[in-house]
């Protein structure tokens, strides 16, 4: 790297500047994080807020790391992840085929549209007591209610994906001799996929939200929601903030995971 710099100082200097710019651009997302932690730290050390309520970011991160490596954080984390995925899979397995089926007949969809929109607009947390009545305070209850709220999102996105399929592609398939079933499986299903993936991504997010709420409300042995509320009850604020950070990390990673998966599968999106 140094030898060519002597013979070709100018281009390398130019490229080094470019590289530096590229690096700065890549680090930009960190600016907000640093800002948040600075403000948090300032408030914590200034004495405006009692240290009982707000530990420093450093202390919180230390608690998080030690809880992950030596404590029970991973057990809580795993319990929440398992419930979220159970709910998500349940919702996806029912929601995608049902949504695609409803979407392929606009008249059928219109006849259930009100129901879907109504329950989609009802906060799923409002239904928790009802689900407890039916399924008790077991694990099933938490999974079912999370699945229910994810289901509606997934279903209506898949249905809209099918309904908004490009008409010219359907016509193209028809003129090439495709029958109704072939149009469905070769065109409609694929056309709906970008929208279906949006539904799946929002579905897993809402499933996580509801699982956390259900863990707090219904109670459980393990789970991040349970951990947050327990820590708060005994004023173990460091663990509460650490668990909140962990939940945020989980939500963010799930979203990124789905975005990456989406980009690979729906390679044609936006092109």
């Amino acid at each position, binding site marked *: 790297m140094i030898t060519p710099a002597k013979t070709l100082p100018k281009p390398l200097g130019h490229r080094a500047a470019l590289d530096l710019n590229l690096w700065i651009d890549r680090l930009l997302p960190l600016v907000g994080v640093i800002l948040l932690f600075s403000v948090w730290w300032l408030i914590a050390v200034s004495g405006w807020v009692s240290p009982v309520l707000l530990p420093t970011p450093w202390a919180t991160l230390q608690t998080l790391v030690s809880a992950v490596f030596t404590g029970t954080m991973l057990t809580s984390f795993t319990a929440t992840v398992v419930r979220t995925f159970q709910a998500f899979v349940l919702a996806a397995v029912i929601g995608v085929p049902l949504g695609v089926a409803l979407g392929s007949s606009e008249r059928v969809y219109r006849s259930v549209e009100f129901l879907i929109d109504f329950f989609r607009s009802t906060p799923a947390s409002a239904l928790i007591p009802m689900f407890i009545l039916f399924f008790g305070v077991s694990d099933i209850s938490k999974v079912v209610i999370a699945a229910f709220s994810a289901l509606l999102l997934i279903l209506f996105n898949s249905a809209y994906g099918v309904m908004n399929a490009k008409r*010219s592609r359907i016509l*193209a*398939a028809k*003129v*090439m*001799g495709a029958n109704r079933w072939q149009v469905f499986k*070769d065109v409609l299903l694929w056309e709906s996929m970008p929208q279906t993936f949006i539904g799946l991504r929002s579905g897993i997010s809402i499933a996580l939200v509801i699982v956390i709420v259900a863990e707090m409300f219904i109670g459980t042995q393990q789970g991040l929601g349970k951990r947050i509320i327990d820590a708060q009850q005994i004023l173990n604020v460091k663990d509460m903030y650490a668990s909140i950070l962990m939940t945020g990390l989980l939500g963010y990673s799930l979203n990124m995971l789905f975005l990456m998966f989406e980009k690979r599968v729906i390679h044609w999106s936006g*092109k």
Partner: protein
Amino acid sequence: MFKLGLPQTIAPPENCIQIEGLSKSFGDQVLYDNFDLTLPGDKFVSIFGPNGCGKSTLINMISGLIPFDSGRISINGKPIRRSRIGYVFQNYRDSLFPWMTAFDNIAYPLQVKGMKAKECHEIVENLIKTFDIRLDLTRYPYSFSGGQQQLISILRALVADPEVLFLDEPFSALDFETTLFVRDKLQEIFMTAKLPMVMVVHNLEEAVYLADTVLLLSKRPTHLVAEVNFEAPRPRTPDTLSSPEFVQISRQCLDIFQEEMRK
């Protein structure tokens, strides 16, 4: 006929497309009222007319994409349901399937017929060789230029050995340079395949350049104003554009068109 391994058309009759008493209205707008038309079986026909006269609607009805109110359309003596039709859409971007590779797109009409993968492959390979297509067809459609994508659409429309090929303004989504490329390739395909082609265009020069016959349509309700033949030898080149015959025929078409617009 180029050999594609499919059953060939048995001695194409003189007249390929026959339309009798065709009527079509959109709401209370009468588009076609008792419209008759006969198209030859070995010619390149361009359809030209004023905006909104239903040029595209006409080929959409002939190819069975949209229904008509009354009348009869037959292709090689058969109802359109039972004939093999190739159709090239105006917008290649919205008619190719972006989730399939270019190769699979071209093979799709064969796959729909339930043909085995190996046989599909052979026919597509054969087609590519016949028309000297040098594209990496393992790529997805969106990775090609507009002209190449339209060429892929044309190949897809040809693969199942159609009795007639319809083209709906195939150049209108392309820039000038790629239009020239696709136009020349289309002429090459027409000369090799000896397959009747019916093309809707909105540019008179475009209409005349490739055509054996230019059909000039009227304003609504649409009827045939004139059928102008252009007999310049093929392959036609940029020189054709400045030949006296081309200038004379274009002039004639323009005069007829302008007179029709004054009515």
